[in-house]
């Protein structure tokens, strides 16, 4: 679903990403680990076609994102560190707006409310303006938007950083639901524990290079941490 082939990005002399090869299939949760500046966000921005690659290709569902910038986005959902919503609109209105923008105007109000229920947003928050939402609530709306969009692939950029452990756990459960629904998920994170718990595969990046790939069912928590630290030195 998500594929990078020799994907590179240069900013002047700086190699933000060097020849990344990556393939994420339906049902995969691929966790990208690495220090800040390792190229995780660059990878996500390249898949979103928010930046142009210096070399290589990124494809979504077989379509090159630079050639089909609008079509490929129809398959994607993006959840950043903090999901940014319109403060003057309610959670429900934000979802309705983004669902329509995602090409789905077929939902009834009840359908949309179901999405919000499904992600565990309290009922009494639906019609409150988002300016009063906590970060956890915003992330839930972000997942609801992905659900409503029927996204085939999710791009998550440190979506749980700053969430309390309970909210973080709830978020991971939602990811597992999406995974069961057949989504391909690429998540940049610093949370080694969550990566091992939730992910199916782990990629360790450093200075724009993918150093190592692991399958989470073949390694222990301790292994993940040890291997990660090995690559940081």
């Amino acid at each position: 679903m998500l594929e990078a082939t020799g994907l590179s990005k240069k900013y002047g002399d700086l190699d933000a990403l060097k020849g990344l090869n990556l393939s994420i299939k339906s049902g995969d949760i691929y966790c990208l680990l690495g220090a800040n500046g390792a190229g995780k966000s660059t990878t996500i921005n390249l898949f979103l076609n928010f930046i142009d690659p210096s070399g290589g290709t990124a494809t979504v569902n077989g379509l090159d994102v630079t050639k089909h910038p609008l079509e490929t986005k129809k398959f994607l959902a993006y959840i950043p560190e903090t999901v940014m919503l319109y403060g003057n609109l309610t959670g429900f209105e934000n979802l309705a707006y983004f669902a329509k923008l995602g090409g789905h105007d077929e939902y009834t109000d009840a359908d949309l409310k179901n999405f919000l229920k499904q992600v565990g947003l309290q009922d009494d928050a639906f019609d409150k303006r988002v300016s009063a939402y906590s970060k956890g609530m915003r992330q839930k709306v972000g997942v609801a938007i992905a659900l409503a969009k029927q996204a085939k692939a999710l791009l998550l950029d440190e979506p749980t950083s700053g969430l309390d452990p309970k909210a973080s756990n709830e978020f991971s459960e939602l990811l597992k639901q999406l995974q069961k629904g057949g989504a391909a998920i690429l998540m940049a994170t610093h949370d080694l524990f969550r990566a091992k718990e939730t992910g199916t595969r782990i990629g360790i990046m450093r200075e724009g290079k993918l150093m190592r790939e692991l399958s989470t069912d073949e390694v222990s928590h301790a292994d993940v941490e040890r291997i990660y630290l090995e690559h940081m030195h």
Partner: protein
Amino acid sequence: MAEASLTRPSPPSMIGIVARKEFTETLRDGRFKWTAAIMALLLLTALASGWQRYAAYAEMQAAAQGTSNTQWLKQGDKNPHSAAHYGNYAFKQAGSLSFFDSGIEPYTGNLLFMEAHKQNLAISRPANDMSAVTRFGEINGATILQILMPLLIIFLGFAAFAGERERGTLRQLMSMGVSRQELMWGKALGIGGAAMLAIVPCLAVGTAVLAALDVSAAPDLGARVGVLALAYGAYGLIFLFLTLGVSALLGAPRNALIVLVGFWAFSVFLAPKTAAEISKLVHPSPSLGEFQAEMKADQVRGLDGVPTAAKFGKYVRELMAQYNVESPMKLPMYFPALRMQKLEEFDHVVFDHHYNSLRDTYMAQRRLQDALGVFAPVLPLTSASMGLAGSDLLHHDTYTQAAESHRRLMVERMNGYLSKAAVDLNGVSNSSNYMTADEEVFAIVPPFAYAPPDVRAVLAEYGGGLGLLFAWLLAALGFALFAASRFRLDVR
């Protein structure tokens, strides 16, 4: 599955979705509530007081013209030439839409005394009676739209892109697969729609007033209103597209606001003042004293350098030769009447020369100001607006020319009557005492009436300026679409 979503029969219109959301969001914004309320209140006040002023003036004008016409007829029996000295007043018709834009009306005078020998300037300028408080001129609907509408649009739109970029929603938005151009159009539609809400009172009052107007008196009213609406619509859209374009290209909302308010202040305050000064430098207009002194001098020395007295002598000699008489007193017409009429006619050339050149100077000044509208769209709009409202120089000139034609007709008919009726009094001393005329004679001068220029004449004069306004609109749209293709997602 993928194919299914690619071949959706009719994808929802992104522009409409974005527009509705922008509209709702704008309406909920405290900024909008306040600015729109103030705008609506000012417009209502200005239009209502403009209408009241217009109605009072129109009533006064009709009544006063009637009274003055009656006074002409009932002035009492006297020598016809003395009757021409007694004179009559020409009252200016108010521009049919001057309740909306009073243009130059407060400064040009609406009353003109028509008398023998002199072409007078219009007097009774409302501006003379204004207090110092109104030093910026009358507040009318046009001024509010010209000055405040752009500001309202800037306030509503400066954060359209820059604010979303700062808050991070622009990334979220663009990840949904919306095209940049559709986003631009949607925002233009939504924010433009919200701005329209604030201008609705203008439309409502305008419609009510138009319903109350006597349309048969001004058959081109519909066309004037239509072109006015188009012109102000274009003006609003120019600022809307500029605002959205700047908001898209500039990083932070604060910067966009500074740039836009700067352009606004330049455009509506600095540019008109500067354009007026430049136009006066390029096409200098005389002071009233200079104007009158020059005209007086030319009346004596003749425009062609042949003194009026010499011209008249030559004319009389030719006339005597034509009738084969040795003395002007032997001519088959009353000589004093002939003389007065002929001297009038020599003056006509001088009056025409000076008044036309003054008018041409003012027109040239205005056309230059319109052309300077390449720097500020408000310049051609201001001109066209008062032209369409009927309160501009074109309408004033038609009025003063009509009054002058009427004056000449009045003098000519009185002198003509005298020259025939008093033919036997040639050479009789104090002859003017023996020749009196009554109401029946005065009635050979019809009551003063004139037709203001119609909308075709207005469009012929202001077509270029309106064209410039629409060129601005296209340029602003082009800029907005260019900005849409270039805007950044993140603050850097």
